[in-house]
Each structure stands twice: as C-alpha cells, then as structure tokens.
C-alpha cells in the first residue's frame, strides 16, 4: 500500500522514538538528526511497509544561516510512494554519516555534495572531489564562497 509522507513519518517515529525525528509540513519532509540517518535509511529501504529502494536524488544545500542541509529524495519502485529526508548540520562541523552502503548511487551524489557544498560524509568508500579538480580550493556553492583570483597560475574570473 502506498503511504503518504505523514503516515511514513508516524510509522518511522514509532520505530525510532529515541532518534528525535521531526516532520516539516511546509515542504513536506522528515528532518532526521545526522547521527541516526544511516539507521533510518536502512529501515526505509528494507522495511516491508516502506521498501524505499532507490535514492533518486541527494542534494547539498547551504542554508545561509550557518547550517548545511542534505536532502534525500527516495522512491519506492514496488509500492510507488516517495519520501523526502533532510539532515541539517552546522557549517562549522559538517559531518554526515554516508549512506553509500544503503543505496550504491549515494557514493557519487555524496561526492558531488562534498565537492560543491562541502559537507563531509563519514564512511563513503571513495571520498574525493568528483567534478572539480582535486586541488581546487573551497566549495563553490557555499554562500560565503569567494572566487579565487588564480588557479595554478591561470586567471579565474574571465
């Protein structure tokens, strides 16, 4: 049976009463504390009631208020429902546990989020930049990002 997002929240909150999940109705999405994202993700994938078997999109966002967000858009190919999870971490200490063992594609999405926004995914099996050169400095999608004047002797702003 496909479930609505608030039903999934009630269900997951019943399974993880200690985790401190919260429901944000305006989006809608479930806000998950960084420490419990991995267990919640695993449960969401394997639970017979949820079966959220694909991670369709993982986005990194700089919220502009000293916090960074990671947004997970999940989909169930069998039950045909969707779920949005959100993890919010402080920009000064942006550690998020990796979910690349839960959905394999997360490895590349997390590398991209690190590359452009700069959160650190602990446990990602191949954690390095993906789109920008390895020796690039900074993360361009941070709101406080300053475009460097030179990169390896080449002028950057054109």
């Amino acid at each position, binding site marked *: 049976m496909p479930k609505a997002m608030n039903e999934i929240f009630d269900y997951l909150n019943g399974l993880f009463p200690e985790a401190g999940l919260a429901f944000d109705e*305006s*989006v809608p999405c479930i806000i998950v504390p960084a420490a419990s994202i991995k267990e919640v993700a695993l449960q969401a994938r394997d639970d017979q009631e949820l079966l959220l*078997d*694909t*991670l*369709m*999109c993982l*986005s*990194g*966002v*700089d919220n*502009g208020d000293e916090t960074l967000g990671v*947004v997970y*858009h999940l989909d169930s*190919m069998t039950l*045909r429902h969707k779920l*949005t999870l959100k993890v919010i971490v402080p920009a000064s200490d942006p550690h998020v546990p990796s979910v690349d063992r839960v*959905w*394999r*594609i997360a*490895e*590349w999405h997390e590398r991209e989020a690190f590359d*452009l926004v700069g959160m650190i995914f602990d446990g990602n099996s191949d954690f390095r*930049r*993906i*789109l*920008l*050169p390895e020796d690039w400095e900074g993360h*361009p*999608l941070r709101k406080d990002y300053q475009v460097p004047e030179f990169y390896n002797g080449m002028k950057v702003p054109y």
Partner: protein
Amino acid sequence: MTESMEVLKEGIASGRLKTDELVLNMGPQHPSTHGVLRLELVLDGEIVVKVIPQMGYLHRCFEKHAENMTYPQVVPYTDRMDYLAGMNNNHGYVLAVERLMGIEVPEKVEYIRVIMAELQRIASHLVAIGTFGMDIGAFTPFLYCFRDREYILDIFERTCGARLLYNYMWVGGLSHDIYDGFLRDVADFIKKFRPTVVEVNNLLNYNKIFVERTANVGVLPRDVAVSYGCSGPMLRGSGVDWDLRRDDPYSIYDRFDWKVCVGDGSAGTLGDCWDRHMVRVWEMEESCKIIEQALESFPAEGDIASAIPKRIRPAKGEIYTRVENPRGELGYYLVADGSANPFRLKVRGPSFVNLSVIDEISRGHLIADLVAILGSIDIVLGEVDR
C-alpha cells in the same frame, strides 16, 4: 609458437615470471567516450578488472550560474546540459518554477510542449541508436538516423529559430507560437519516419553481428539497477516497469494511450546492451503514438503567452520536480527564498547517475565490450559534468 607459450605458462605457474595489472587511460579525447570523459581502466591483459570514471572536463557549475541569474534567465542554461534533449530540459525546469508559483498553463501550451518533448525524444534516441551502431562498427544506420533527425530539427528551427539549444519553453508559456503548417509537418514526419525504424531494424538491430556484439554483454541485473538509481532505458532495459510519464504524471501525458517499453532479454540475458538498445528503438514508436494522439486532439484556440507572469518571483519554498528525459529521470531540486534568483537549484542528471554503474557491469569484459557498454548507457557529457 606453441613452445614459447608453454615456456610462458610454466614461468607464470612457477612464479619466475611476474604478471601485473596495467592501468590504461581511455579518453578524455577518445571517439567512443562520446565527449570528454576519461575512464581509468585497470586491465589484466585485455580483460577489464576495474573502471574508474574521471569526470569534470566539461564542468561549468550550472548550479552556481543559476544562483546568479533570474528565473527566466536560467532556461537557456538548461539547454546546455543535455544538449541532445534541450526541449526536455526546458520542460523540467519550467514545470518546477510553475509548480512553485502555482501557474496553470493553457491547454494549447501543454499540447505543444508534449509534441516538442516527444519529437526531441525521438531525435535524441536516433543519435543514441546511430552512434551506438557506429561504436560497434556499423556505419550506415548512423546516416539513416541522422537523416531523419534533420526533419525534426527543421521543425524546431521553423518554430523557434534554433536547431540545438532552443530556449523554447518559458515559465508559463512558450517563446514562439507554432507556425502555419506545423501540425501537417509533424504528421508528415511521423509518416516518413516509421519506415526508417524498419530499415534500422533490418540493418542493425536484428543483424547477427550486432546481436553477437551486444547480447549477453554488460548485463545489469534488476536490483543493481535500482540500487544505483538508474533510470530511463537503462532501468527499463533491466526489466523494471518504470516511466515517470506514467508513474509520476506531469503535463498531459495521462490523456494518451501508450505503453511503457521494457526489455525482455530475448536476444540473450535480461539487462544486456541489446535490451537497453531495443528499449530505445521501441520507445520511438510509442513517442510517435503520443504525438499522433496529440495532433488529433490539438486545441484550435489558445494563447501561448497568456499565462506568462510579468514578475517571476516564487514565494519561499522548495520543490523537487522530475520529468522523463530521453536518458531517464531529470530532476530539479529548486529552493526559492522569495527573491528573483533561485536560492539553490540542484540538477539530478540521468547521464550522471547512469554512468556510475559502469564499473559494476564492465568487470570481466574485454575492452572492446566496454565500448559497447558505454555506448549502450548513452551518456551526454554536458549533463554528467554540468
């Protein structure tokens, strides 16, 4: 010769001769990587042990561009991601902004958008099929495919002036109305196009050499495809019945009668290169069916510009909108903060996601088969790197 082979074998077996893995760079300037992609291959002789894709040669940071531009100014940049499917890219982006602002577009605009998106799908699949044949060594079908693609590009050119990068779909409407005779031209194209599919089937798709090269090569099992988030022909080739036009309907796709094409493994194993290729071939016929039905019920009246807002400033909010691009799920995660520029626009490109599975499905194959596998994934580097 046999004697020296014996000596070699004995040397390896006894440990006196050392064998080692070889790292070989394929690309970034290699004709079969379809753009500037570099594959770092770890080889054991001619057998692929590991593939490490290195991307970013075409990176322009579209997402950074988008943050520094007003909402309508982003549209031309979406064309430049997947440059073979500009119409579909426009469609996804304008849908995201329209849903965020709650804009209902006129019926006529929806019809034109669907016709354009499906024509673009055919054009894109023609490139995929033609170049895939060429990767394998079949040159003639490529010419047939590109000849037919020209007809579509001519229709696009007469409508909006551009052949590749259209900036055609705007938030709330379209940049140009259709020209007199557009409907007739599209109907003519469908008539001209159908025999080509038969020709390409005879020349390429059921050709013994082609089948030998693609069947049982690069098998992508269903669960791996789902775990890697594959979409489009890649996912359907593995037997998963999933198409966003039907499963997460947008625009007016729910009004038409068509079916989702799924691979059946009839040439070899389910999920091999041949299945992925054939899903594209079959999908072109389904697109024809959608276009024909859209032409039949095309609304006579309508103003394409009536819903274009004077001021495009969505209220604070966020949305994830996705459309079925020729390569799979094209998603836009758009966060608005009430200003004239997007606060954050993340693109989930199907080529990027589909490419990630290449290591998994190429292990143990020959280098020549890797070329077939890469061709069957059908990536556009403009979108992988964005």
